[in-house]
């Protein structure tokens, strides 16, 4: 994989990106950084502008304003140069149903001007990567929705892009395929690719992303390292004890533990920070409450996301 010729250290650097459709603003100033070798998650509610941003980063849509560099190339000045290093998979896309799986990939290999000698090997390697090797020579229309999604991933990787943009790649995938997609994106990041994924499935992003960019109403509202989120988040906590009555008694009359709601064999309480939760657990153990489970009820990403979307109401 060739290294960027310029001094760019990030796959994507976008500052102050705006875009309106007619009079309706879709992006009101988005900033995003996607470093090489990491998976960055793009998270936000429906209509936050995720797909618009991805279309702009993919060089399909021109922004009204803003500075964007993809793989070291200014998108305004030279979108063609950026495209060579750019892999893109949209949320909904068509495949040529009339072609076979390998014809489909061969067509894109030619369209990206891959050397003909390299082509068969590249196609086999990609089909193995997305677990479709047994479909070599089969028509695309026999593939299931999830398999077509994986073929789309293979297509977006055909020219060995250094920057990979995926819009809701996990939608329509079964649990097994989701795990495989996660492993695939992790291994691409390990090879130095800058990966940007948008998704609604927050638990899954938590497992695969190194960084998260939170967007809402066309603006970037936060860029965090996934590791920092856990400390900053104030999730609700789920507590289970062998003696639920004793647990309830120990929590009674303590407003600092937040709203306590009954659960079978325990309760949910909070929101608490990790430090507050650790203090509470120590206290419960000291009071000889037989605690068998104590953990966040929601993932760190989900609680941040819920807090963000709650603020706007």
């Amino acid at each position, binding site marked *: 994989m060739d290294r960027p010729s310029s001094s760019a250290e990030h796959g994507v650097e976008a500052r102050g990106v705006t875009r309106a459709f007619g009079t309706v603003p879709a992006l009101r100033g988005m900033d995003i950084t996607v470093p090489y070798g990491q998976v960055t998650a793009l998270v936000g509610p429906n209509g936050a502008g995720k797909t618009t941003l991805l279309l702009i980063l993919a060089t399909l849509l021109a922004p009204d304003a803003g500075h964007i560099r993809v793989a070291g190339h200014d998108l305004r000045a030279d979108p063609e140069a950026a495209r060579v290093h750019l892999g893109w998979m949209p949320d909904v896309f068509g495949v040529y149903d009339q072609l076979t799986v390998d014809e489909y990939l061969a067509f894109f290999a030619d*369209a990206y001007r891959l050397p003909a000698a390299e082509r068969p090997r590249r196609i086999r390697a990609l089909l193995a990567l997305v677990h479709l090797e047994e479909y070599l020579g089969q028509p695309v229309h026999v593939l299931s929705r999830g398999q077509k999604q994986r073929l789309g991933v293979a297509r977006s990787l055909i020219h060995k892009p250094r920057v990979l943009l995926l819009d809701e790649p996990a939608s329509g995938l079964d649990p097994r395929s989701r795990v495989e997609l996660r492993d695939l994106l992790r291994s691409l990041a390990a090879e130095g690719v800058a990966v940007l994924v948008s998704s609604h499935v927050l638990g899954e992003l938590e497992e695969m992303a190194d960084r998260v960019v939170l967007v809402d109403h066309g603006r970037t509202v936060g860029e965090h390292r996934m590791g920092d989120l856990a400390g900053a988040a104030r999730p609700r906590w789920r507590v289970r004890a062998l003696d639920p009555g004793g647990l309830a008694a120990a929590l009674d009359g303590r407003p600092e533990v937040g709203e306590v709601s009954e659960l079978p064999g325990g309760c949910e309480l909070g929101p608490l920070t990790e430090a507050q939760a650790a203090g509470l657990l120590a206290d419960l153990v000291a009071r000889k409450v037989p605690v068998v489970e104590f953990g966040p009820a929601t993932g760190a990403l989900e609680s941040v996301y819920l807090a963000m979307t709650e603020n706007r109401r």
Partner: protein
Amino acid sequence: MGARVRGARLVAVQEVRIRLRTGRWKALLAVWALLVNGLGLLFRLSLESGDHGDDDPQGVPMFGGVLLAVLALCLLITPALTGQSVNGDRERGTLAALQLTRLTPADIALGKLAAAWGTGLLVLALTLPCVLLPVLEGVITPGRAAATLAVTGLLIGVVCALSQAWSALVARSITSVLLSYLTVLALFGGTLLLFALAQPLTVEPRYYSSSSGTRYAYERERPELVWWLLAPNPVVVLADAAPRLPPHIETDGDVSTSSEPDNDPLGDLGRSVREMRAGNGNYHEGGPVWPYGLAFDLLLAGGAFWVTTRRLRTPVRRTAKGVRLA
């Protein structure tokens, strides 16, 4: 330049492959070939049965009639071949991935146009048996056949380019196919209608004095001012571009008279538009009309191709309502 040809060929091969694997192309083409050639032969038979001892060969009207019908039918089929080449791909969600490759907008437009035009030419080729029968009979020269077929092929290409531009301009494929048909209709009927409406506007009063000194006024139309309105009409272009048949020579004893050949639809049409170009009161033919018509049609096609290429450019600045980018 090599890259352009390679890119366009890649797109064209892909389009043809997809077309061939979609639907029952072979059956459709076979039905088309049978229908056109069958009707052509039937036309010939009806000409023969109406033939009352005239020694004019019936291959001449057959050639003209069949060719005009083939032109009309091919131009009616063509919008269906091309009318959704760009927005159809957009609707299926396959265009954006193509635009992000190293194929340029011109590669994509040219490849798609070549595939559509090639299909149109194949449709034309299937009509050859009945078009070429008069040539085999020796009634029509190969030169006349080649010239008229070449013009027909070019006109098919013009309609392909126009339909493609509509498919690039309009979001929904049903709309672009409709607009393509209206464009063909405008070329055929619109030119005729405009000419028919414009000709009365050219009327000018004329006077002449009789020998007794009385002045008479009358009105005269001047088609030489508006003949060009007819020029883009595909029928006019084809008919006027057809090389003329040798004049009919009749010998009666020592006197031989030369007259225009009978029953030649192409020649008749060509002569009448050239007479319009010459204007009333001129008893000689005007200059050829078809170069103007063909040049206009080709310019239109060139403009349409430019529009298509422009609409395939990314990043897109202005988006129409309801157009999906990807």
